[in-house]
């Protein structure tokens, strides 16, 4: 039985600085990969709803592939496979310090597939009568999509979207398998760095756990508010 000492291993220099840097990296990863996933998911959705069979197949294939592959093997693929293929094709070493970019790409690829699937359910839930009404008013297809379909679709699937984006935030801990440079580690990476130096796991792990619990709460509230705003836009226009 070992006594727990948060003052020494969490709230003292240099460990507090490391952990706070880790928290900021977690936030950066969550936001950047969330935005990347949203953009990716949106374009996959456009592909899946396209008139052309080619784009539909492409979108469907993307979703089946990336939804059914766990994120750690996906990151392994990006860390080992992509540099390997690069070396074979170009004959040069893969550029260094690309680990963070690869991690963000991996997170976005994974979450993007889920977001596309969720958004598709939302779009299909918007009543077809609304589309007809839009067409009767002489709106262009683009305007119908932007002003009628997407805001309502987002509102309908807001809880699923929110929980997936929170899941994406939690997935940033998968960065543990990526050999990031020390200043780019996220909070769990910094926690395990402290553990590696001090041979104590409880305090840094509990700190990381608290950070993630708080992040889930704060992100959840913020995203829910945003989703409600989308609906207000529809009602205001009507």
């Amino acid at each position, binding site marked *: 039985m070992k006594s727990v000492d948060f003052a020494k291993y969490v709230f003292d220099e240099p460990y507090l600085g490391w952990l706070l840097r880790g928290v900021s990296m977690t936030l950066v990863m969550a936001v950047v990969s969330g935005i990347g996933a949203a953009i990716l998911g949106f374009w996959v959705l456009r592909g899946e709803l396209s008139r052309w069979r080619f784009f539909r197949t492409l979108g469907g294939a993307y979703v089946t592939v990336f939804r*059914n592959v*766990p994120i750690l093997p996906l990151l392994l693929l990006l860390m080992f*496979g992509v540099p390997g293929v690069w070396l074979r094709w170009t004959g040069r070493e893969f550029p260094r310090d690309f680990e963070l970019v690869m991690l963000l790409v991996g997170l976005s690829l994974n979450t993007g597939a889920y977001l596309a699937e969720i958004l598709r359910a939302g779009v299909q839930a918007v009543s077809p009568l609304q589309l007809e009404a839009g067409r009767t008013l002489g709106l262009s297809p683009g305007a119908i999509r932007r002003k009628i379909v997407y805001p309502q679709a987002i509102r309908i699937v807001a809880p699923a979207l929110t929980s997936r984006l929170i899941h994406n935030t939690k997935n940033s801990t998968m960065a543990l398998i990526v050999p990031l440079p020390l200043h780019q580690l996220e909070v769990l990476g910094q926690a395990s760095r402290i553990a590696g130096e001090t041979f104590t796991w409880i305090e840094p792990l509990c700190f990381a756990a608290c950070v993630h619990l708080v992040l889930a709460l704060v992100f959840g509230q913020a995203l829910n508010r945003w989703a409600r705003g989308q609906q207000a836009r529809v009602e205001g226009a009507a």
Partner: protein
Amino acid sequence: MNWETHLRGLMLGYPPLPESVNRDYPAFLQTTGGLALTLLITFFSLIFGGALGTLLGLLRRDAPKETRRTLLRRGVEGGARLLANGFVEGVRGLPIMLLVLLCYYLPYPVLGVRIPPFLVGIFAFSLYTGVYLSEIVRSGFRSIDPGLRYAGRTLGLPPRIFFFKVELPLALRAMKPDLINLAITVFKDTSTLAMVGVAEITYIGRQTMAAHPKDYALVLGVILISYWVPATLLSLFASRTEKARFKMETL
């Protein structure tokens, strides 16, 4: 290129030396590895997590309002619900990686016992399954029309018979697609155990790639395919049952 050895390692693992097998724990868990161990851990987590999740889900169920209960019973039920809710929300807020690390690193300093990694894996994923399952169980029971309860009482069915013969089968049918999806998630997420030295397929793949960097393409391909094929097959099955559920609701 000794691809046969790699393939065998990825599917069944590299068996440990006989003297390093701990006799206190089941030997088959220690001598298997690779995809076989992934599947074993998924299987046991679903069994234990199933029990935990059913219990938590039933505890968290909203109490039927119209039944008369004693103050004591209401208090006990409310307390249990509060505890179960706190537990579920706490575990659900944690990333699975953090949950696995907590289960791996906490037992020794806190309780003074060393638990072998594969048991840590089964424990962590049972918690994970249980917590998510409790949510599914809760919504499954919520999907049942409350009018059925009145119908059952009018017919004079005892509460226990009503639960086992009416409520449970209906709720199970409503929960089926979500249960399959949960199984897929657990199967995929067991890859996290590679970080705590459980010799499942991702871990073996990483070690193999470190030892034979030239064979990375083969190893990565085998890992990705052995996750992708079962997950895709199961999700196809889930979407078929989803359609069946939709039909049931519209009837």
